[in-house]
C-alpha cells in the first residue's frame, strides 16, 4: 500500500478533525474548566434508590438556595455531580441538609464526595500543567534525538515526533472543547493526567514506526527515503493496529463497566489512543518524508509512488 503518496490526504483529514475543535476552542467559552482550574467546590450527591429526582429539580433547589452559578450533571444511578463556588464546612452542611430534606426526605449518606480547590491552587495547577506538558515534550524530543543518533538527521525524528504529539494533544483538547459545549464535560486534573498519558502513548507508537525506519535506512541505504518510510509503515501497520485495538478494547470495557468517576479520563485516553495511532502513520512519518523532500509547504509536488 502506498502511504507516503497519500500524505496530502492525511494532512487534510487531520485538518478536518482539528478545525472544528479549534473553532470551539476559540469561540467562547472554549474548554469547560473544572474546579481544579478555576477554584470552587464540587460534590457528588447520591439520593436513595427510589427517589426519581431529575437534574432540573436539583438545579432549582440550588437556585432557591441562591447558588445561581451552580452546575448540575446527572451521573446516573440517582447520583448528581454539583459544582458551586467555594464552600466552607458550614455552607456545605447547610446545602446538603437543605437539598436532602426538600428533595429526598430521610435519605442518608447523600454526600458521597466533596472537593474544594482554592483559587491559588487552581492557578498553580494551570501553570504546572502547562510546564508539565512542555517538559514532557522537551524530554521526549531529546531522548528521540539521542536514540536516533545513528541515522542521518536525527533531529528530524525528534521534531516529527513532537509534531505528532502536538497534533494528538490538539485533537483531544479540541474534542473536549466540543464536548464541554455540548455535554458540559469538564476538564480537570484527571484530564491532564490523561493528556500526558496520551502524549506518552503517541510517542511510544511513533517510535515503533521510527524504529523500523531506523533499521531500514541502514539496511536499504540505496533506496529513496520516501520508499523506505513507506516500507517501514507497511511492516509496522499491523502491529500498530493490533496494539491500539487491544488498548481500545480495554478502554471500552473500562468505560462501560468502570465507575463514573474516571469515565472522562478514559474517554480522553480513547480519543488519544486513536489519534496517537493515526498520527504515527499519517503525521509523524509523513512529516519526515515532507521534510526530506523539502515539501512541507507544498506536500503534493513530490508525490512518491513506490
Amino acid at each position, binding site marked *: 500500500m502506498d502511504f507516503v503518496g497519500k500524505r496530502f490526504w492525511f494532512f487534510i483529514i487531520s485538518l478536518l478533525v482539528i478545525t472544528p475543535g479549534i473553532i470551539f476552542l476559540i469561540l467562547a467559552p472554549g474548554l469547560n474548566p473544572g474546579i481544579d482550574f478555576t477554584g470552587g467546590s464540587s460534590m457528588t450527591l447520591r439520593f436513595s434508590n427510589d427517589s426519581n429526582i431529575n437534574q432540573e429539580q436539583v438545579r432549582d433547589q440550588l437556585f432557591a438556595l441562591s447558588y445561581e452559578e451552580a452546575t448540575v450533571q446527572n451521573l446516573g444511578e440517582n447520583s448528581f455531580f454539583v459544582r458551586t463556588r467555594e464552600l466552607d464546612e458550614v455552607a456545605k452542611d447547610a446545602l446538603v441538609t437543605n437539598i436532602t430534606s426538600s428533595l429526598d426526605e430521610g435519605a442518608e449518606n447523600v454526600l458521597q464526595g466533596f472537593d474544594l480547590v482554592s483559587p491559588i491552587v487552581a492557578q498553580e495547577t494551570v501553570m504546572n500543567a502547562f510546564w*508539565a506538558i512542555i517538559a514532557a515534550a522537551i524530554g521526549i524530543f531529546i531522548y528521540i534525538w539521542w536514540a536516533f543518533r545513528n541515522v542521518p538527521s536525527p533531529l528530524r525524528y525528534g521534531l516529527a515526533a513532537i509534531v505528532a504529539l502536538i497534533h494528538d494533544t490538539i485533537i483531544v483538547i479540541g474534542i473536549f472543547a466540543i464536548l464541554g459545549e455540548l455535554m458540559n464535560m469538564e476538564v480537570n486534573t484527571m484530564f*491532564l*493526567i490523561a493528556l500526558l498519558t496520551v502524549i506518552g502513548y503517541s510517542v511510544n507508537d511513533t*517510535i515503533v514506526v521510527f524504529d523500523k525506519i531506523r533499521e531500514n535506512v541502514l539496511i536499504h541505504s540505496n533506496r529513496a527515503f520516501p520508499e523506505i518510510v513507506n516500507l517501514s509503515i507497511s511492516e509496522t501497520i499491523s502491529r500498530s493496529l493490533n*496494539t491500539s*485495538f487491544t*488498548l481500545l478494547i*480495554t478502554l471500552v470495557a473500562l468505560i462501560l463497566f468502570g*465507575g463514573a468517576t*474516571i469515565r472522562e479520563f478514559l474517554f480522553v485516553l480513547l480519543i488519544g489512543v486513536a489519534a496517537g495511532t493515526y498520527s504515527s502513520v499519517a503525521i509523524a512519518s509523513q512529516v519526515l518524508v515532507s521534510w526530506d523532500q523539502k515539501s512541507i509547504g507544498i506536500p503534493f509536488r513530490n508525490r512518491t509512488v513506490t
Partner: protein
Amino acid sequence: MRRNARALITIALIITICAGIVGFQKISIGAFNRGGDTPLGLSLGLDLQGGSHLVYEANLVDPTTGEKQEISKDQMQSLSHTIDRRINSSGLGEPIIQILGEDRLLVQLPGIRDPGRAKALIGETARLEFRHRTLNAPPQPIESIKPENIKSIKIDELREDGKIFSELDEKDKDDQTQELTSFPAVIVEFDETGSNNFETLFLNLSLSLEKAATEAAAGNFGSPADQIHITIDGDEELRFSTLANSIRKIGDTPRFGIAFPSDDTGMDGNIAVEDAKKKLGNNPEIEFAIKKGFFDEDIGLSGDDLKSAYAGQHQASGVPIVNIEFDDRGTRIFGELTTDIFAKQEETGVRDQIAILLDGQELISPVVNSPITAGTAVIQGGDFTMTRVKDLALLLESGRLPVPIELIQERDVDAILGADSLRKSVAAGFIGLGLVLIFMTLYYRVPGVVASVALIIYAVIVLAIFKIIPVTLTLSGVAAAILSIGMAVDANILIFERMKDELRAGRTMLSAINIGFNRAWPAIRDGNVSTLITCAILYWFSDQLGATIVQGFAVTLVIGVAISMFSAIVVSRTLMRVVALSPLSRKINLFTPTGAGNITNRESV
C-alpha cells in the same frame, strides 16, 4: 536446552513467590508487615476506601508589619506534629501528614467518618501554657453524691474479685485454690443516682491512676494520681484516702466496696474489721471527697512569653536537653514561679512542678532545681533521648508561635462511593484483560496463548510488587495498571510481528524467535523509555501539588512498564523457546496470524 531449563526454573520461582505474596492476606516477617483486610491485602488510596485529603497552607504574618513571613522547616515540622497529635488523641483515626514544598501540609485521613470534626481540630491554633502544679491538693467534697443517695454503710471483708466475704457460699469460702485476698472494707449501698455518680467518680479515679502509672513507667516526672477521701462520722470518726485500685463494684448491685489502705500513710490504715465496726457504730454518716493528685494554677504564663525552644545537649554531661528562653515578661513570671516553688521546697520539702500544657494536654511537668531568674532554662529527663527532646522542642515551638493555616484543597470521598469504584474498576479490569487474552489467542494463535500466559504472570508480579512496596492503589492507579497491560501486550505484539517477518524469510522457528526478540527490543526499549520520561514528569508535577491521584498514576505506570518489559523479554521469550522445541512447532500455521497464512515475499508490498 539447559539455558531454557534454568530460565524456566527462575520464572517458576518468581511466580511462586509472587503468587504467595498475593495469596496470603497478611504477611509479617519480623518488623516487616504487609497486607491487611483489604482485597488481596493491597493498600488502598482514599478514593477507593473513602476518606479526606486536605491541603493546608501556612500563613505566617508579622503581627507588627502585616507582612507575610517566611516559615522555617522546623515550624512546618511542629505544625505537622501538632495536627498529628490532635487527631490521634481525638480517636478519629490515624492521619498521614506530609509537608509539601515550603509552606504546605497534606493531611490524609483514611476512612474517616467525621471530616468536619477533624477539620475543626486541625484548624485550631495551638495554645501553650505554663502552670504552677501543686501536688496533693486538699480534698474537695463531691457535690453529686448527697446523704439521701446513700442507703446503708457497713464494714466487711472485701475480696479482690469484688465479692463480700460474708456473702460467699461455703464452698467458695473454703476454696483456697483461688488465692484471692480479702481486705477490710467499707461497703456502701447507693440509690440509683448515687450509684451512677459514684461509678463516674470511680471511672475518673481509675483513669487518673492509669495515667500516673503510664507516666511512671515511661520514667517521666509523673504526677500522683487522684484519690478518694472518705470521712465516716459514726461513734468515732474514721478517715482515709485511697486510690481507685482499692474500690470494687459489687456484682450488679448498686453497692461499692472501698478497702482500707493497707499501709499506714492513710490516716486510718491497717484497721481490723472489728475495730472499724466499733468505730462505725449504729448510725454512721459518710462523706466523699476527692483528693486531686495535683492542682494546676494559672499564673498567666503562655506561649506568647516564650522566646524560643530548641533541643540540645547538656554542656557538662552531654545528655539530651530542651533549652527554653523567655522574653522579658516571661522571664519575670517564670522567675517568680521558680523562686516560689524553690522556697516552698526548702521550707516544707514538697516539690511542686511546672506543668507545661499544649492544647490542654500535658507535655511534661518538670520539677525545679533552683530559682531561675535569667529567663533561660533547660529541661532534663532521665529517659530523654535526642528524638524525644527534638519532638518536645518542636511542640513547644508550635505553641510559641502558632502558625495559622488555611484550607486550600479538599477531597472527601465517602467509603460507599470508594468501595463502589473499587468493585467496578476491578470488574472492568478483569473484563478488559479477558478480552485482550481472547483477541491475542484468536489472532496470534500459539504465540497468542504464550503471550496470554505471560500477561497473567505479569499481572501476578505487578500485584505482588504493589503489595510489597507497598504502592497505594488509587483509582487512577487502577487506570494506569490497566494501561500498562496495554503496554505489555504491545511488547508481545511487536515481538510476534518481527518473528512473523523472520518466519516468512524462511528461518527456522527457533532462530525466528531469537531474531524476532532481538529486532523488537530497540522499539520496546525506546517506547518504554519515553513512557518513563512522561511518568517522571507526571511525578514531578504532582509532587508540587500533593496531587496524590497523579502520583499514584505515575508510580503505578512506572512499575507496570518495567514489569511489562521483563514479562515480554524474559517470560514470553523463554516460553516461546520451549514451545519451539516441542512438536507443536512443526505446524507453522499455528504461529502466524489469522488471514496471514499464505506467506508472501515482503518485497511485493
